[in-house]
Each structure stands twice: as C-alpha cells, then as structure tokens.
C-alpha cells in the first residue's frame, strides 16, 4: 500500500517485462467477471520477468485489484500496449542535451518513475514535480528523489512542500531558475494535464501528456479511446497513449472519460450490497 487508496504490486509476466518500454501500459482482468482495466507500467525488470503497476481504488474493478493479496494473481495480463515514449527513439547525444521537467499528479506519479529512470540512465537532466491533495497521498517520494535531479512537491492543503497546484509550482520553478527546460511531460488526472498544458504553453515549453482514456481491448479494435488531437480523431491505445499536449482536446477527453460514470456507480453500489 502506498496510501490507503493506492496500492502497488509486482506482477510476474516475463514476456511483457522483456518487451516493455517507458510510456507503455498493460491491461489486466482480476477475475472471470472483471472488466479489462488499462494500467500504465510503473516499472519493469526483464531479468526478474516482472512489471510493477500502481492502482488507485476508484471503481468496483480497481477495488478488486487492490484487494489482491501477495501470491495471488490476475486472471489476465496483456501488454505492453501503446507506443513507447518518444524519447526512447532519441540518441544518448540528444538526450544529454535535454532538460526535462515532469509534472506528476496523484497516482500518475507511478508511470513517471520509469521515464525518469530511463532518461537519467541516458544522460538527460530531469526534474520532477509531484502534486497531490495532501501529504499522505504523495507516492514515490524516495524512489523519485533517488533517480531525478530535483524533486519538488506540492499539496493542495500545504501539508507538504509548496501549497497549491502543480501549475503554480511549475511556473514558480521556471521563474526562479530561468527557463532552463527543453521538454515537459505531464501524467495525472485529465484536468491536471489540461492545466499543466496551459501553463507550459504560457512558458513556451513543449509538453507531452499521457492520456488515460476509456479502453476495452487496447489494441485498436473498439475505438472507445478516441481523442481529438490537432483536429483529428486518434486512438489513444495504439497511436498513444502519449500525445503533444498542445494538440489535445482535453474538454472532449474529460467528457468521454465520464461516459460510463452512471453505470460504474451502479456497479460499485451493487458490489457493496453483495
């Protein structure tokens, strides 16, 4: 458990672990009756054959995931899905010249970790901002500070670090240290990525976002994940999940994310009755 509502687990999946790259995701099913839940990969170890995932309890299925005990398994694990982060295509020379600032929100902090780890290992300069409602909900504090250059923390209630939103902290960090970054990456709730993108735009900083859209199969079959990027419909599962933040229609993406909210609340309620 990383916090009362967030849990981390290592899953033995040798084929997935040996193919996984930063930025990709998995789909898991807890049991025969379960949904297919897309989860971003938080770490992977090809030698051990394991991948790490982090889940926040939000609906009936994520609660079931978090209820799994050590030694138990998923009914299904499939991946790695989606395209790896763009920087995995770049040369070490290019990366040595790059200065990244990551903006991680809540449970979105976990998938930031393998990206930071990869970039540092290839010589890039990397700072990280982690934001959460309150200090208790900050995850990956130690892990992240071990791999990044500077870790900045902010909480909505001021219980740890900067008091305020990630956007406020991003603007402060950039203002204090001068505009030294070449690339921003935001991973977290859709609304946070929307505002992080607006801030980055204001600062003239390119920004990549990782979209956690609805998905069924995760291989391009259903189109539930469609998002409008630069005026064109794209499938986040096979053409993403990462896109240029400037081009994403976040309002549409947020609306589409809530498509099954009514049904999900009913399902969650049913579970409590059982």
């Amino acid at each position, binding site marked *: 458990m990383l916090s009362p509502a967030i849990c981390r687990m290592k899953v033995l999946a040798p084929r997935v672990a040996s193919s996984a790259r930063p930025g990709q995701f998995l789909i898991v099913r807890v049991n025969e009756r379960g949904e297919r839940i897309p989860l971003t990969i938080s770490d992977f170890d090809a030698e051990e054959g394991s991948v790490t995932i982090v889940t926040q309890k939000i609906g009936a299925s994520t609660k079931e995931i978090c209820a799994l005990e050590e030694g138990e398994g998923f009914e299904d694990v499939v991946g790695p*899905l989606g395209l790896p982060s763009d920087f995995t295509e770049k040369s070490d020379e290019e990366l040595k010249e790059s200065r990244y600032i990551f903006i991680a929100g809540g449970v979105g902090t976990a998938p930031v970790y393998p990206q930071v780890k990869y970039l540092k290992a290839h010589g890039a300069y990397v700072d990280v901002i982690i934001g959460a409602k309150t200090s208790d909900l900050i995850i990956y504090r130690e892990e992240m500070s071990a791999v990044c250059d500077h870790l900045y923390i902010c909480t909505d209630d001021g219980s740890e670090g900067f008091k305020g939103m990630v956007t406020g902290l991003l603007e402060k960090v950039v203002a204090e240290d001068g505009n030294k970054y070449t690339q921003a990456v935001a991973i977290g709730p859709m609304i946070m990525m929307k505002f992080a993108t607006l801030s980055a735009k204001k600062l003239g900083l390119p920004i990549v976002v990782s979209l956690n859209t609805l998905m069924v199969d995760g291989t391009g079959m259903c189109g539930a994940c469609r998002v409008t990027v630069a005026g064109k419909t794209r499938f986040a599962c096979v053409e993403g999940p990462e896109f240029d933040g400037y081009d994403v229609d976040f309002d549409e993406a947020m609306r589409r994310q809530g498509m099954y909210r009514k049904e999900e609340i009913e399902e969650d309620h049913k579970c409590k009755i059982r």
Partner: protein
Amino acid sequence: MANKIPRVPVREQDPKVRAANFEEVCYGYNEEEAVLEASRCLHCKNPRCVASCPVSVKIPEFIAAVAAGDFMAAASVIAEDSSLPAVCGRVCPQETQCEGSCILGVKAEPVAIGKLERFVADWSRAHGTKKVEKAPANGHKVAVVGSGPAGLACAYDLAKWGYDVTVFEALHKPGGVLEYGIPEFRLPKERVVAAEIADVKAMGVRIETNVVVGRTVTIDSLFDKEGFSAVFIGSGAGLPRFMNIPGENLNGVFSANEFLTRNNLMDAYRDDYLTPVMHAKKVVVVGGGNVAMDAARTALRLGGDVTVVYRRTEVELPARREEVHHAKEEGVKFMMLSNPVEIIGDEKGWVSGIRCIRMELGEPDESGRRSPVPVPGSEFGIEADSVIMALGTSPNPLIARTTAGLETNRRGCLVADGDGVTTRPGVFAGGDAVTGAATVILAMGAGRKAAAAIDRYIKGLE
C-alpha cells in the same frame, strides 16, 4: 419425387420473446426434420453446392448419410473439410454459397444445407466426438497469430499433420470474431464456440491468450527466440471505421466493435459481469452488414428502440437474408436510402439526434452495386440517444508495422497469394487480414490453404 417435399421449416424462438433475451434464436432441426430435409437432395452428378463452398465440404455425401440416419458418418464427412461446422452451419451466408447454387432453388426452395450442417455438428457434439486421424509428431513448430476462424482452421490442419502448433491470441478468450463479434443469440459461446475450440485443442493445438503479436512478442522473435519454423497470420480485420462527420466523438457514439465486444466478449448484458454498457432508449445503427444487424439486435435486447440507417436499398443490404428477416421480426426498424451527415449533441456532449440526407441510386460502382447519391436539400433529423457505427473494419497495422519485409496494400491488407504466401519467407497469412472484412468460411478456407502451403514450405526446408 424427393423434390416435391417442401423445405422443412426450422423452429425458432418467438420474435416477441427473443427480443428481450440473449438465448439462441434458432432451435435447429431435430432428427426427423433433418432426415426429411436431407431426403430432398437430388444428389447431382456435378454438385454445384460443393464448388461454391469455400472449404469444399462434400455436401451431397454428408446429406446422404443424414438421409440414411447415420449422423456420425455425416459428421465424419464434414470433419474432413471443416473444423468449425457448428459455427458455419449458423453464420455462413448460405444463400450466396452452397444453397444459392442448389439446383432445387431454381424452381423452389434449395436444400437447407446450413441447417443440416448445424444439425450434424450439434448431434455429433451431443453424441460423442467424431474420430479424426492424427499423424505422429514431426517436431516442427508453427506459430499461428489470431484464434479466429482463419487461425483455428490453419492450426487444426497443421496439428492433424503432426506439427507442433501454438496459437497466439491478443484477447483473453480464443475465438476472435466468433467470440467478440457475433452475439450469443446467433452463435452460443459456451455450447458452440468453446466446444469447437475444444476440438481444435484436442487435436493438440496450444492456445496462448493475452499475447499481442507486434507488442508482447514480434514475428522476428517467434522465429529467432522461440524456434518456430513458420508463422501464419490470421489477425483479422479489427479496426473500426468511422464516417468522419461532425459529432462522432460525442458521448453515446460507439463503433459496433466496441458495443459488441462489451456485450459478447465481456458479457456486459449479464448482471453478474462488471463491464458497463449503455442501455440506450433510442438507437440509430449506421450500416447494412451482418455487424450492423448484430449491433441493432443487441441494442434492441438491451431495451432500445432501434433504427438501422442504410444508404442503399434493401436489395443491396450486405447482411445475410436471415439476419435481416430476424431483425425485422424482432422489431428493428429500417430507414433505407439515408446517410448520416452529422450527429447532434446536447449541452453536456451526449448524443441527442442525428441528421441524415436522403439518397438515390445512381450508376453502378466498381462492386457492381448502384452507388448512392445524395438528394440535395433533403436533410432530415432523427431523435437518438445513441449512435452505433457499423461501417466495416480494416486490418490492424500492428504486425505489418513491426515486421520487416511484410508488405501491405493500399487498404492496409497483408499482401499474400492464393496459398497465403506473403512477401516474407516463412510467413503466411489469410482471412480478413488479407482480404479485408469478409466471412467466417472464407477465412477458414484461407487458413486451410495456408496450412497446406506451410506444410510444403517446411518439407521443402528439410
């Protein structure tokens, strides 16, 4: 005279009752009905039905066995050419294949070949499995990508000839379109699909689910790291098309693939499964193929008032005739010669209606069908809270993009000859991945031809 007997009608669930459940619509023949129907076959010297069957099932031969009451013998005859008879008996477009060329159909009704095939398959399932000879293991490993009709047919033949076959399936259940696409009321999942897949497994085929070729493994890693001598790609045509009209990303607009996958693969219509699905009140389904009929009839069963919007006329509907007939009986409405131009949303971004334009038929296009042309100024609105797009599908580019030397054509289909030989040595392909969306039986036929080509290829390597 045998041909004086009228075609034996098949018993079906009452349309009013079945419109509210997911049980199979058609009950199939019982033994007496099957024997009587089988007695109608003229046993033509030159059977046109066999020639128009993509897998060349020896139709008069199995029908003769049915007429003689030897159902197990009939099953063995079919098994020589088809690994999925209970599926094909249910979903083949018989009216354009075997039954469409039956000589009896010239003056009266053709022999109900599909219903007889289904009867034989179901009967043999209920009365113990038919014995099929299997060659001793030859030590060669073949990988099959995709566990739909093409992959299963290919795997079955290769295993029968002694190959060590592994099928890789991206989803969590095998069957491909049989599992995620075709609904329970047309093709029961446990009783038919799972049972036929069990037969393929009994032949020695291993099926690994949750493996996305192109992501989890690649074609190259199957050859280099996992020791396969040949690969068959039967990955289907899974990418849904949209119309690219305004409003298509509103909440309540789905691809038929998403809507059907949620219901079929993920059992969303069942209360004890967690996957959500929208129970819309007024549904518009766009398209006229089997997938459109499946989506319409599923939406109807979830409580919707359903209208199919199609841009040509009923004559051009590409769906099986039986599906259109069933849909109408159940209460699905059809709006012909209409084409959507825009989907309208409410202030919260949910679908509230759809704007269409009237069409008229113009000159025949390259497919030979008269192409629809919009009638200027004829736009009209339909109220709807959900729109399901069933406009066809294209092959998934994942494998072609991650495999060097594997060519695709303009439409994204893998380039392969009639034997499934692709542009990359050792890699074979067939089914929808090569042809674009087509039928179960054509995919099976392609899978079988490729199996024979793989056999020749591997023997040539020795």
